């Protein structure tokens, strides 16, 4: 698995900048970005892919279901 593959993919057009994902992330690897989407919101972004534990909490909590979460396979195999 390549180092770059993101564990958390956020659909920026769906995001409404509610920050619920940011608040819920147990390892604090999400934040609101400085980008702006077509509705005028600053979408959330993952800033530390490494630390993300792929717990899925952010996705479950996101009211917009703007987040997809992936887990590296057989990483420790």
């Amino acid at each position, binding site marked *: *698995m390549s180092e770059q*593959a993101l*564990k958390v993919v956020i*659909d920026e*057009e*769906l995001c*409404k*900048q*509610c*920050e*619920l994902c*940011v*608040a*819920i992330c147990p390892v604090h690897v999400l934040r609101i970005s400085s980008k702006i989407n077509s*509705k005028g*919101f600053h979408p959330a972004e993952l800033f530390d892919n490494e630390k993300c534990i*792929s*717990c*899925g*909490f952010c*996705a*479950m*909590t*996101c*009211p*917009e*279901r703007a*987040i*997809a*979460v*992936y*887990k*590296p*396979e057989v990483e420790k195999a």
Partner: protein
Amino acid sequence: MKIVYERPKTLEKVVNHYCPGCHHGILHALIAEVLDEMKLADKTVGVAPVGCAVMAYNYLDIDWIEAPHGRAVAIATGIKLAHPDVLVFTYQGDGDAASIGLAETLYGAIRGVNVTTFMYNNAIYGMTGGQMAPTTLLGMKTTTSPYGRDPKREGYPVKMAETIALQDGTAFAARSALFNPRAITETKNHIKHAFELQMKGEGFTFIEVVGTCPTNWGMTPVEASEFAKNEMVKTYPLGIKKDVKGSETR
């Protein structure tokens, strides 16, 4: 990469009209996830309320009808009896289900109609701009309880899950929430269980979901979720209030 979470298929990929951070979106997604998992999208009819969720029909890829304010369970009853094999659920606000529609909702339970009702309890009338709901907490200020809800003047919060649980036609009644992953998981389990009971013809299934309304509570979404977790649940204790098949399936 293994998929941990992807947007459910039945959740249409459109930007919804809910305010940022509103829990309505989470509840929509959970229903969509269960419909996906149970492969029921092709035999489901949803009944949208009058309330913030009035346009829920735009967000879940199933057949829908938009009911008059409060009459969702009556509409659902008509649909269910027309097509007994179809999964029918109503998606309602607290005002819709517990104020103007109180009789219809309770009669779902009294009659034991095989439909599932979701009642999104945000302690407010969201759609119309923040008036008092039957579920507004004591002391809460709203546009129609501007001095704070005082039981002598504005009465008491209504406890739907408990009242529904008391009726003999109820197969399942629970109150859950969406303020953290654990509550969300619990809610999803309830949904699945309720849908299963419905498909087995066990009777009326009811899930009161404690949600938020950041906009009319005057809070940020994060504050609102905290408020739901810390304050709402004091008046609205979470848990299963009745489950006819509790021992078997859980």
